[in-house]
């Protein structure tokens, strides 16, 4: 029998190694799996590469992980969102490396990682400072850059409902990076508001099919 529901946050994040790449969902604090990120911090894991849109808000979740010195590098599009003081302190102290990636490129690179795409050409960042050093190609008279896939060792996501197969639905704009990150990691852990009986989620309305999900925990 398939049952992806685990009892504790600790079980949900178990097994992450030092140096791991962690996909951290959310747009600002919306859709951020704060409790999973807190649980990851409690495991003591370090030297993490975190992939996220922002770089943490307030003191919990991704911000807390950064404040605790566990994040070696952050790959994100916009580090300074609402109340980014944990990131800013680490950045000014030279304790965190920043790889800045345009938001759509960040998302597309993870989708490529999820979809068996080994690289892809897009126009975003061509002819700009963020395009420096990238392989370029002229396609139909326009300049494109080659982008490479991103895959996580673990993705930490947040959803609204789940069933024991790991099918997920989201709530409004809290969907954001969750579906793409859930697809793009070797292991995907999701915190949800509630677990419903198998079959209660309309098969037409499943947003993330359970095939992408490994562990579900109710918070």
């Amino acid at each position, binding site marked *: 029998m398939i049952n992806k529901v685990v009892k504790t946050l600790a079980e949900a994040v178990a097994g992450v190694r030092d140096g791991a790449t962690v996909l951290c969902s959310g747009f600002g604090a919306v859709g951020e799996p704060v409790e999973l990120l807190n649980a990851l911090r409690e495991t003591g894991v370090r030297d993490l590469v975190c992939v996220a*849109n922002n770089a943490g808000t307030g003191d919990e979740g991704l911000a807390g992980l950064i404040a605790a010195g566990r994040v070696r590098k952050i790959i994100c599009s916009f580090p300074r969102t609402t109340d980014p003081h944990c990131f800013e302190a680490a950045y000014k102290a030279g304790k965190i490396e920043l790889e800045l990636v345009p938001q759509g490129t960040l998302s597309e690179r993870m989708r490529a990682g999820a979809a068996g795409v080994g690289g892809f050409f897009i126009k975003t960042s061509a002819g*700009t400072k963020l395009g420096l050093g990238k392989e370029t190609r002229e396609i139909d008279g326009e300049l494109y850059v080659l982008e490479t896939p991103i895959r996580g060792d673990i993705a930490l996501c947040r959803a609204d409902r789940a069933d024991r197969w790991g099918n997920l639905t989201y709530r409004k704009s809290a*969907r954001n990076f969750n579906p793409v990150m859930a697809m793009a990691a070797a292991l995907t852990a999701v915190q949800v508001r509630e677990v419903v009986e198998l079959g209660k989620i309309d098969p037409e309305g499943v947003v993330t099919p359970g095939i992408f999900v490994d562990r579900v925990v109710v918070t």
Partner: protein
Amino acid sequence: MKPLTRRQMAWRAAQDIQDGAYVNLGIGLPTMVSDFIPGDREIVFHSENGILGMGPAPKPGEEDKDLINAGKGLTTIVPGGAFFHHNDAFLMIRGGHLDLALLGAFEVSETGDLANWTTEDPNFAPGVGGAMDLAVGAREVRVLVEHTTKEGKPRIRKRCGYPLTAPRCVKRIYTNLAVLDVTRDGVVVREMVEGLDLTGLQKVTEAKLTLANDWKKIEAPAV
């Protein structure tokens, strides 16, 4: 000579948005444009974080913390709207599905280069967000910006001094002084505020300006 207020700038930009357009409004001043859409037009606003049909800010008591805009302020969704994930949101942007992106800027060059993501201030980590995606992807990119910096330096330049967001992407610029088009023949002045002439406008503009034959005064109401 009376420059437009920020609200009047937003009003002016709003007048050019066609009925039925799919539009992304940048963070800051461009966001204000949605308040001035003529009432007979139905515009679908897009947000990078997975919304089409974004509505006005919520009324007190109707706030939903899971419903925010790209600037991370609370927002609403109108009937006919849809939620989707970030990847689809940027497929729409990069794939040329938006009719218009109306963005802020630090500088625009006379060839339409846009600089709106970083001033390279060493005190702050840079952030790019969706700026580059919007600049390369929207079918038309327009900019809404004060004509000069607070210190009076021109923002419409021969070449941008700040790092580019994308080269050759801006088609139209709305400032507090004028409406300007970036054309193959350079920057053309379509409209100016009352009491300003080309010489006066050129003084606060680094790019070489040409006056359109059919140029006119901006008639902005006191919004």
